[in-house]
């Protein structure tokens, strides 16, 4: 298993921080991609942050009322070692399937 940090992203045009209002997940929870993680408030609005990926929430940073700066850790996920990076999916190794069969008269060799 590998740890994957999720730092607080820039939630608007050049916002530098956000205040934690309420955690919607707890440490130890298994979350899916796009599942709301936390409600935060910026100088512009309050909003729910969706999870960038699926995985187990290993650690959450900041209690309600705490201010977190953009780029600082928000959540640390635990993910399997074969989890893809920021794009794409890990290919699965499958037994090869075929429709084409070969035929040849190799005696001419």
């Amino acid at each position: 298993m590998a740890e994957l940090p999720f730092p607080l992203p820039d939630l608007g045009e050049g916002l530098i921080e956000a205040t934690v209002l309420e955690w919607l997940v707890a440490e130890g929870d298994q979350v899916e991609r796009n599942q709301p993680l936390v409600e935060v408030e910026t100088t512009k609005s309050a909003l729910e942050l969706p999870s960038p990926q699926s995985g187990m929430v290993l650690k959450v940073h900041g209690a309600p009322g705490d201010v977190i700066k953009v780029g600082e850790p928000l959540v640390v996920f635990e993910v399997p070692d074969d989890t893809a990076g920021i794009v794409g999916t890990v290919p699965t190794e499958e037994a090869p399937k075929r429709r084409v069969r070969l035929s040849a008269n190799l005696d001419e060799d």
Partner: protein
Amino acid sequence: MGGTETMMAGTAASAAPLELSLQGALNLALDEILAEDPKALVLGEDVGTLGGVFRVTSGLAGKHGAARVFDTPLAESGILGMSIGLAMAGFHPIPEVQFDGFAYPAVNQIVCQLGRMNYRSRGTLPMPVTLRVPSFGGIRAPEHHGESLEALFAHVPGLKVVSPADPQQGYTLLKAAARMPDPVIFMEPKSRYWQKGQVITESGLDDGGKSPVADGAAGARIARPGRHLTLVAWGAMVARCLQVAELAAEDGIDVEVLDLRWLKPIHADALAASVGKTRRAVVVHEAPRTSGLGAEVAQIITERCFGTLKAPVERVTGFDVPYPSGDLEDEYIPNIDRILFGIQRVLEYKRG
């Protein structure tokens, strides 16, 4: 490699091969390069704090320091420009562009500076730069994340181009590339990053300073011997061609798989030796067909083996379109049936 076996027998436990993914093998190679070469540097987007989007540089910044493994701004021309300047100042940079399609913004630096600085300076400014490029398709990624640029780079005088097919090749070829005085474009098959295999490391070999692992990095490699036909491939297509060879064996066709490894310079003698024996050849690549490297391979084979070839060299490739979205990927990348069809066309060919 007979010497390798002898030495492995002599060093028993420490020489046991490691079971590593390609990610892990590349990570280990970089770790060892940084440890043994104080001039080596690793730089690129997210290679430091994050450890790379594919975890290839994971832990290296912590171990070797943020001055030697560091993040750059999102600017590929800057990554390459900085690497060229560092090389001029005596460093051995190992930059990464995060994905194949983002090498395009750095093409001016690669072609006009990196490839020809040694030539331009009459040999006073060699460019010991190893550019790591996660390459090729197969992971359902969006645009710019599945391209095959080997023909583009192989066409540039002054560059070497190499692509590993498995963890052992990743380790061996990256260590060899990083020791070269020349710029090397190192194309990592990203669809193979998670596949595991056995890796014999240099540290497992008490070789008295002469590394058989590094010696094993020259030229092409027979990935599977065979008698009736040679499949030529590189990168991720080697594993697929090995699968095809297994299926062909069910039909009584004994296929040799040649892992080309070095795409510039191409190991012409290895092509001639293999196809000289099998007398039939199919070259397989993901890149578009027109002016793809398969054409160069086919021409080298034709030049060397024309007298004994049983059929024209067949190409099984991607198509002359931009690399498609993930849903169409399986139609674009040469699949098992397309490769088998290519083999059948060669087997059926009749002269006259």
